[in-house]
């Protein structure tokens, strides 16, 4: 037996191609997802250098950021969006990269498509030109976002030049109380460590509350790891993971599956392994969370109030809080449940999976969206949409007054037509509440899917447990 080591280190060591004297490593990348926004310049770079894609079959292309969520038969009206998607199609064709077209039932947000197809596997290294690639860490894969130059590097070499990260353990002990979800766990963690708290780390999530989550919930937690500054989050794979993956189109089959599972069972942090930092939360103290400002760390329980910058000792943080409150149009001391909303967005790579839609539908069922609110539900993929329709969730949403849309990133980043007007306030299940994120001047409050549905019904931020 060697020295006890962490899950991150095990995956890292098993992917080392070369190490330089200064500690810089060349690591092998098993899976690479590509979307239309961060790839055109990478393919262009390959073309200019006369290079091929080393492993097109380990690459999966799908358009998600720009796609319309309304009727797609009409095509894409914005010429730049259309060109970007046509460019992805052409690049996929020219370089032999598998591509899921906009009318393919499997199309959707890359981070929802990868797991659904079994493209995402435990112990693998997975990258994509998108910071929410951290999502795939829910499977015990080392998954992180990269820039376009690195996309080009992976396309050409199937490797990346990296330095090892530090190890952080976030342990969430005990059980969640009713009405509290994975989204609340991760928002509470970000509130605890801050938006830069994970910078330079890979975070392993552990503890009873994490173990008790479904794969959907684990993906929500790992998805938002980047909002805490860490490029990657990890959850050791277990029977929940294997059950989710078994039979997926690209997952191993037969004897290969058996061999894979026995390897995957070794993918956990050894007893006695040392982390550079450990953070412990008690799940039973976590309440439904909601953000009040323009950074994901600006979070409070729904039972709380808008905080007062005057109480912040650090001048830079105080200035940032004041700027946030001004942008958000909020007064310090206001109870969160007294803040009215104009829009509700349910979807994204954070909360656009079937379990999220079920949670929202359970709240929407038999109720009506407030007259003052426009609410949309955007499934994370064509398969999520199909499943939801098979369960009748679309009917529940429509009857309640929600719009039922086609899959894509949609109003999480508002690159398509789904965006907030200046001053509009939105309860959103997405991952970022930055200034202008959902549209210039738009005001975002991050919440979980049931909380978003509750806000749509009452017309203001609402404690879902009180509904």
């Amino acid at each position, binding site marked *: 037996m060697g020295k006890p080591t962490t899950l991150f280190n095990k995956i890292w060591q098993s992917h080392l191609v070369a190490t330089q004297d200064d500690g810089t490593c060349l690591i092998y990348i098993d899976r690479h997802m590509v979307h239309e926004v961060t790839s055109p310049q990478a393919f262009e770079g390959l073309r200019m250098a006369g290079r091929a894609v080393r492993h097109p079959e380990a690459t999966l292309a799908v358009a998600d950021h720009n796609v319309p969520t309304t009727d797609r038969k009409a095509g894409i009206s914005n010429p730049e969006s259309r060109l970007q998607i046509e460019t992805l199609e052409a690049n996929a064709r020219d370089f032999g990269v598998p591509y899921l077209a906009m009318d393919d039932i499997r199309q959707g947000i890359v981070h929802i498509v990868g797991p659904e197809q079994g493209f995402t596997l435990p112990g693998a290294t997975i990258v994509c030109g998108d910071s929410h690639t951290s999502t795939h860490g829910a499977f015990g894969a080392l998954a992180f976002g990269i820039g376009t130059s690195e996309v080009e590097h992976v396309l050409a070499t199937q490797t990346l030049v990296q330095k090892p990260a530090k190890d952080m353990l976030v342990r969430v002990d005990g059980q969640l109380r009713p009405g509290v979800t994975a989204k609340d766990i991760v928002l509470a963690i970000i509130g605890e460590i801050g938006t*830069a708290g994970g910078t330079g780390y890979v975070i392993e999530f552990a503890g009873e509350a994490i173990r008790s989550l479904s794969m959907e919930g684990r993906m929500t937690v790992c998805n938002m790891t980047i909002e805490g*500054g860490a490029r990657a989050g990890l959850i050791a794979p277990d029977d929940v993971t294997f059950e989710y993956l078994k039979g997926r189109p690209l997952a191993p089959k037969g004897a*290969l599956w058996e061999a894979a599972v026995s390897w995957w069972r070794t993918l956990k942090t050894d007893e006695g392994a040392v982390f550079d930092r450990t953070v412990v939360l008690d799940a039973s103290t976590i309440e439904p969370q909601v953000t009040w400002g323009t950074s994901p760390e600006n979070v409070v329980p729904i039972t709380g109030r808008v905080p007062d910058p005057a109480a912040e000792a650090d001048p830079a943080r105080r200035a940032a809080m004041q700027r946030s409150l001004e942008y958000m149009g909020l007064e310090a001391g206001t109870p969160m449940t007294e803040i009215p909303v104009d829009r509700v967005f349910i979807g994204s790579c954070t909360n656009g999976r079937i379990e999220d839609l079920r949670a929202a539908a359970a709240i929407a069922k038999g109720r009506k969206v407030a007259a003052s609110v426009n609410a949309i539900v955007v499934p994370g993929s064509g398969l999520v949409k199909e499943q939801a329709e098979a369960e009748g969730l679309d009917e529940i949403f429509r009857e309640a007054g929600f719009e039922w849309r086609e899959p894509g990133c949609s109003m999480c980043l508002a690159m398509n037509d789904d965006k907030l007007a200046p001053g509009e306030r939105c309860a959103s299940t997405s991952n970022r509440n930055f200034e202008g994120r959902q549209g210039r001047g738009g005001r975002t409050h991050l919440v979980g899917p049931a909380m978003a549905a509750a806000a749509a019904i009452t017309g203001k931020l609402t404690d879902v447990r009180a509904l």
Partner: protein
Amino acid sequence: MEKFTVLTGVAAPLPLINVDTDMIIPKQFLKTIKRTGLGKNLFDEMRYTADGAENPDFVLNKAAWRGATILVAGANFGCGSSREHAPWALLDFGIRCIIAPSFADIFFNNCFKNGILPIVLPQEEVDKLMDDAERGANATVTVDLENQIIRGPDGGTIAFEVDAFRKHCLLNGLDDIGLTLQKQEKIDGFEQTRAQQMPWLVASRPAA
């Protein structure tokens, strides 16, 4: 990639923490399929009013800093998305060096791929440079990568750290991919071993 050796220029002060990638370059400008031309939309929502006019209060719109090549900013600069459009926009505007107490990881990496030098300094050193930057065009700053020294307008110097490999690549304007392709045999060898030890990781194409 353009080499980075010694840079002397005007430093613009941006004393905000958590400057995110949506602030640096909002999503409506990510629809481009090129790397160039993003400079005019750098910090778009702070730099222009809703009707497209220049906001006279924003630092890069003031005469003293319109030609800035260095940015001095608050902690956690570049947090948020992986969009390399953020360093592309900075570069296209003319910024070649950013000095802050800390950076977000992905943005930090992306800078080096584009000939931009991000420098991490303790808060008190950043505060000093922020004061210098406030003096505008009358106070230029010199960043000497080879010697890892920043020279302020009054002759004082501040030493900074930089990863040796990244420094080497910046000084010589080296392309990562070319360097990695020299290790082709090692990659081939890794793939052969992986196919034996973890054959389930050998990818197969999705059904058409």
